[in-house]
């Protein structure tokens, strides 16, 4: 179905109502929201000169944040969904632009373990690499789902290279310090969950 036809029929309330439903209806709401303002990605390409992948990542992240906030009832409807989402999207564009310009980090490029291990001396590196290889990733992924939605979101943003300050802005935490404390607690909690299963 052409996107413009779809977008003219769907109201903000339709999307919100759908997102607040459980199961497949909730998933439909997610897709509706994604489709509704997908043209924001054109702005990322045209205005900010991002490539298609970057535009997609930024928009998808904005949608994920928006979905999370709508489900937490953090969206109060004081502005339209479009205005509100655009603000999230714009902030993410600016964040990425700033990072690309200052070349300080490689946000939105999944930071691989080999990259991080490059910093390490050979002996320690070998030990860590062997331990990583033995890690039960499926179990870790399973525990990530169990650690709680807030933790999961924070950890995903952190893994994507966002600073605590940026995560605070993105996920509506009061300060970067709150994010840091929460994030470290989440890591600790996840570690305990993982270890508990491994010993069992």
């Amino acid at each position, binding site marked *: 179905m052409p996107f413009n036809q779809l977008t003219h029929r769907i109201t903000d309330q339709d999307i919100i109502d759908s997102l607040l439903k459980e199961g497949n209806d909730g998933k439909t709401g997610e897709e509706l929201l994604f489709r509704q303002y997908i043209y924001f*990605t*054109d702005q990322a390409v045209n205005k900010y000169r991002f490539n298609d992948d970057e535009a997609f990542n930024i928009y998808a992240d904005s949608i994920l944040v928006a979905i999370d906030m709508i489900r937490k009832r953090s969206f109060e409807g004081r502005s339209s969904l479009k205005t509100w989402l655009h603000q999230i999207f714009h902030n993410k564009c600016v964040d990425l632009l700033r990072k690309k310009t200052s070349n300080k980090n490689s946000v939105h490029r999944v930071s691989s373990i080999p990259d991080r291990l490059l*910093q390490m001396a050979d002996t320690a590196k070998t030990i860590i690499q062997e331990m990583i290889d033995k*890690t039960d990733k499926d179990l*870790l*992924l399973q525990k990530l789902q169990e650690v709680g939605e807030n933790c999961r979101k924070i950890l*995903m943003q952190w893994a994507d290279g966002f600073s605590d300050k940026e995560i605070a802005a993105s996920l509506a935490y009061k300060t970067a310090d709150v994010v840091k404390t929460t994030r*470290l607690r989440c890591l600790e909690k996840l570690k305990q969950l993982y270890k508990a299963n491994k010993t069992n």
Partner: protein
Amino acid sequence: MDNLEYIESYFKGDLSAQDKIKFEQKIVEEKDFAEEVSFYLSIRKVSAEELSAERERFREIYQQYKVNNEVIPKQPVLLRKMWQWAAAAAVLAGLIFGWYAWLRPVDPAALADKYIDDNFQELSVTMSSRLDSLQTALDLYNKGKQDQSLKILESLALQDSIAAEAKKYAGIVCLQMEQYDKAINYFSQLSSYSLYSNPGKFYQALTLLKRNQPGDKQQAKLLLEQVVQNDLDGKETAQEWLKKW
């Protein structure tokens, strides 16, 4: 938690060179610590993959959008504005051209030039009682030997039987040689002949337009009006020119 902060400091590059060595030594010496480091890195990777998977469920929608609405990267604002101005200028130029082409009065001299180019590049005999001489004159003209052609035509113009035809061609040759006064004289004489087909007045007007001296255009216009009114040779062309005058 303390270990997690310590690990994070290492990977952020916040530790001094000496502390970095200590950190790596700790990995070698303490298995539990090494496990914590490996866990820190593993969870980071798994979380990144999880985020990637969350995004990916929208990928198909995005790709569909890209196919349906291929994004043409826009130019920077300044360049876009320049394009807008260029487009506006092009429209304006088009309007000016349209006005110039269709509405603006055409320079009669230009009409005369075109007529001469279209009709006088090569001449052919239409009728003659002394075909050989007239044909010779026109052949010479067609070969670019205008002087020799004119001499023959001037001599033929003295012979009554062929004078009108000779004067017509003599006027044309003079016109091409930019001897406008002589040409006007020949055409004027031609127009006084009572012929079935007499382009004298039209050619006279044509030559006046080419000479383009003060008053020539006005006189040419009067002659063209007479051509139309009297249904003389060149009437259709005269009508067309008068419309564009």
